[in-house]
């Protein structure tokens, strides 16, 4: 979904503009609801035994990532942002992954006999 356009300096257009934003407001409320539901789901799932704790962690992280996605995409308008910001975030994402993955990897692969 798109972001509400910036208001124009011209008061004449103001009417339908406000209306335009109004539409988005509904969306925001829905997303909020969705997030609350997901929170409930996360809690519930943590009491379901998926066999191993690993499995439980993975499931919980998937839900969390989904929620994070919603917040980012809708509340933070990432669904439709400028290229520039995407670029910055892609690099950041990459480096943060590197930080996680490589430290884990280094932990996982020590000198051994």
């Amino acid at each position, binding site marked *: 979904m798109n972001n*509400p356009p*910036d*208001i124009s300096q011209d008061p004449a257009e*103001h009417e339908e*503009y*406000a209306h335009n*934003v*109004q539409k*988005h*407001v509904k969306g*925001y*409320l829905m*997303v*909020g609801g969705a*997030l*609350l539901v997901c*929170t*409930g789901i*996360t*809690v519930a799932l*943590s*009491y379901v*035994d998926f066999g191993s*704790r690993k499995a*439980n*962690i993975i499931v*919980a*992280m998937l*839900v*969390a990532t989904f*929620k*994070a996605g919603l*917040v*980012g995409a809708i*509340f*933070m308008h990432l669904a439709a942002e*400028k290229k*520039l*910001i995407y670029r*910055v*975030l892609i*690099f*950041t*994402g990459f*480096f*943060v992954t590197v*930080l*996680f993955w490589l*430290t*884990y990897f280094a*932990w996982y692969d020590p000198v051994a006999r």
Partner: protein
Amino acid sequence: MEIPYTISNRPDTGLWNAKIGIWLFLASEVMLFGGLFSAYVFLRLDSPPGLWPHGLLNVPVGTMNTAILIASSVTVVLAWAALKMRKYRAYWWYMLITILCGITFLVVKLAYEWPQKFEHFGIYIKQDRLEKYEPYLGNKHLAEKGLPPRLEISGHLHNHEALHDANVKEYEVALDPVNADPTNPAMDRPHFFYVPPTEKIGKIDKEDVERATMFLPTHSTYFATYFTITGLHGAHVLGGVLVFIYMWLPVSKKLYQRNPEHLANRVEVCGLFWHFVDLVWIFVFPLFYLL
């Protein structure tokens, strides 16, 4: 010459300055919490079986706090939208709700959750003395079920003098349900609702104790990460609240009258920050409360 693009977009980037600024700042924030979370992973992987506690935190309260943060995130966008629609009153109310949400979150954390931990007492038993406390630990039962062993006996400390008085030879603890009735299958998984310690008093010889502390950061790497990350997160919440208060005060009304779009931009920028704080919590909550 004035600094251009403080309010309106630079044509070729399609962005105004502060918007880029905040996103760059958030990028660095991602790396900051990235560092902390990678530490969490590192330490959790390192911890031997039984040494990474579970179910010590108060899930319903945590859930409530999560809900509060999410709600506040919604109200922030609404506040921003209201400004876009030039409805100052609505903006004012949404902002107020946001602020209150933020404050509630902080109060719950600092005045309720943390203190509840601080007064809880945990005792790690020496490896070679574990059998002696089998009635409190129920490790045989756990072993049968293939669950990690319990190394800690927790509850409320009765004889506080034991902490500093060397003559007191044992700790008397009002046991947590888990230790009061360890073999009860209901205890295998953490409770949903917080259950206070039972009346049952457990006695533990100091000789058999590996370490005994309140649930402070020093208690374990688990609580160390928990307090550090939630603490830092709390600091962010506080910062957000303060800025929001500033933008809710009459000062910003003046700015609104002078140039509503400018106020809208500011709210958008702080909103982005607030959503990020919310987003961090979305990961903190399951990692510490549930898993």
